[in-house]
C-alpha cells in the first residue's frame, strides 16, 4: 500500500477499579474499538507519575491517556483529584515543550462505562492520527551531521600533527 494510514501508538494508564474494569467490560460486551491503545494497569490514577507519561513519549508513544474513576467516585476516595491536578500541571509543561494538547488525555470512566471508554479511545486515536507521529527521538538527531563534523576535526588534527615540529 502506498499511502498507508498512520497508526499512532497510544499508551493508556488505567486505574484498577474503574477504568481497567471499563476496559474489561468493553471486552465482555465485544465493543470493537481502535487497537492503537495499549494499556497499563495501575492501582489508581493517583499512581500515575508524570514521569510515566514523559517516558512513554520518549520511548515512542504518540499519545498518552490517563483514565480513572469519576471525580467523587475514586476507590481511594479522592486520589483521582490528585491525578487531575497533576494532569493539568503536566499539560501546562508539555504545551511549553511543544507537545500538542491532543496527545494527552485525562478520561474518567467508571466500571460501567465500557462504551464511553471505547468512544474516548476512538476519539483520541482519531485526534492523534490527525496530529501525525510524534517521533520524539527525532528531535535530537541533528540531521545526522554530527559524525561528519567530528570526522572533520579528527582529519584537521591529524593534518596538524603531521606538521614536523
Amino acid at each position: 500500500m502506498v499511502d498507508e494510514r498512520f497508526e499512532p501508538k497510544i499508551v493508556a494508564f488505567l486505574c484498577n477499579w474503574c477504568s481497567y474494569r471499563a476496559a474489561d467490560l468493553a471486552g465482555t460486551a465485544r465493543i470493537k474499538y481502535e487497537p492503537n491503545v495499549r494499556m497499563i494497569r495501575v492501582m489508581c490514577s493517583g499512581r500515575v507519575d508524570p514521569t510515566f507519561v514523559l517516558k512513554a513519549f520518549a520511548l515512542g508513544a504518540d499519545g498518552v491517556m490517563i483514565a480513572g474513576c469519576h471525580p467523587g467516585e475514586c476507590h481511594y476516595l479522592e486520589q483521582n483529584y490528585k491525578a487531575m491536578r497533576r494532569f493539568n500541571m503536566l499539560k501546562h509543561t508539555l504545551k511549553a515543550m511543544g507537545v500538542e494538547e491532543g496527545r494527552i488525555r485525562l478520561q474518567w470512566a467508571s466500571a460501567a462505562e465500557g462504551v464511553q471508554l471505547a468512544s474516548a479511545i476512538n476519539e483520541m486515536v482519531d485526534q492523534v492520527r490527525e496530529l501525525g507521529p510524534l517521533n520524539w527521538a527525532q528531535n535530537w538527531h541533528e540531521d545526522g551531521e554530527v559524525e561528519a563534523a567530528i570526522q572533520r576535526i579528527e582529519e584537521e588534527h591529524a593534518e596538524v600533527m603531521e606538521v614536523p615540529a
Partner: protein
Amino acid sequence: MNVTKSNHTFLMQVMDATLGGEALLTCLQCGSCGGSCPSGPDMEHTPRRIFAMIGAGMRDEVLKSNTPWYCVSCYYCTVRCPKEIPITDIMYTLKQMAIEAKLYDDRDAPDFSQSFIGFVENYGRSYEVGLATRFHLTHSPLKKFDYAPFALTMLTKDRLQLRPERIKGIGQLRAILNKAKTMEDM
C-alpha cells in the same frame, strides 16, 4: 455493537442541528413536555409524540405536522424535561427543516415567520403595520378578528409606527446575515 459514527438518520439530523440535541437520545417518553405545553391541546402531535416519531424516522409526518409551528416558545417543556432535552430549540430546528423541505401543510405559521424576517432583512427592524398588512393580505388567520378597528385603535393610541425605520448599517447587517446563511447549522 460497534462504536463508530452512526449513519445519518433523521434523528441524527435533528440532534446535529440543535445545540445540546444529543439529549434527545435519552427521552423517557414521560410526557412532561406534552403535559406542560400551552398549545398542547391544539397540536396534531404532542412534543413527546413528535420525539417518538423522530426516533421512528417518520420525517415527512413530523415536518408536515403543525406541532413546531404551534410552539409558543414558553420553554416550560425545556425547564421541566427530566432529561434536559432542549425541546424548544428542537422545535426551532424542525421549523427550519420544514421550511427547507417545503413540507408544512398549514402555510400560516411559516409564512408569518418569513414575512417577519423579510422585514428584518429589509429594514433591520420589524414593523408591525407592514407585517400585519402583508400577512393579512395573503392570509386570514384571525378569522374572528377584525383587523381594521384594531389597527385604528392602535393608531389613535399612538402605538403604531406608520413607516418602517431602516437602520443605518443595513448593508453591514445583510452582509453578516448572508455570510451566516452559508454556514452549517450547529
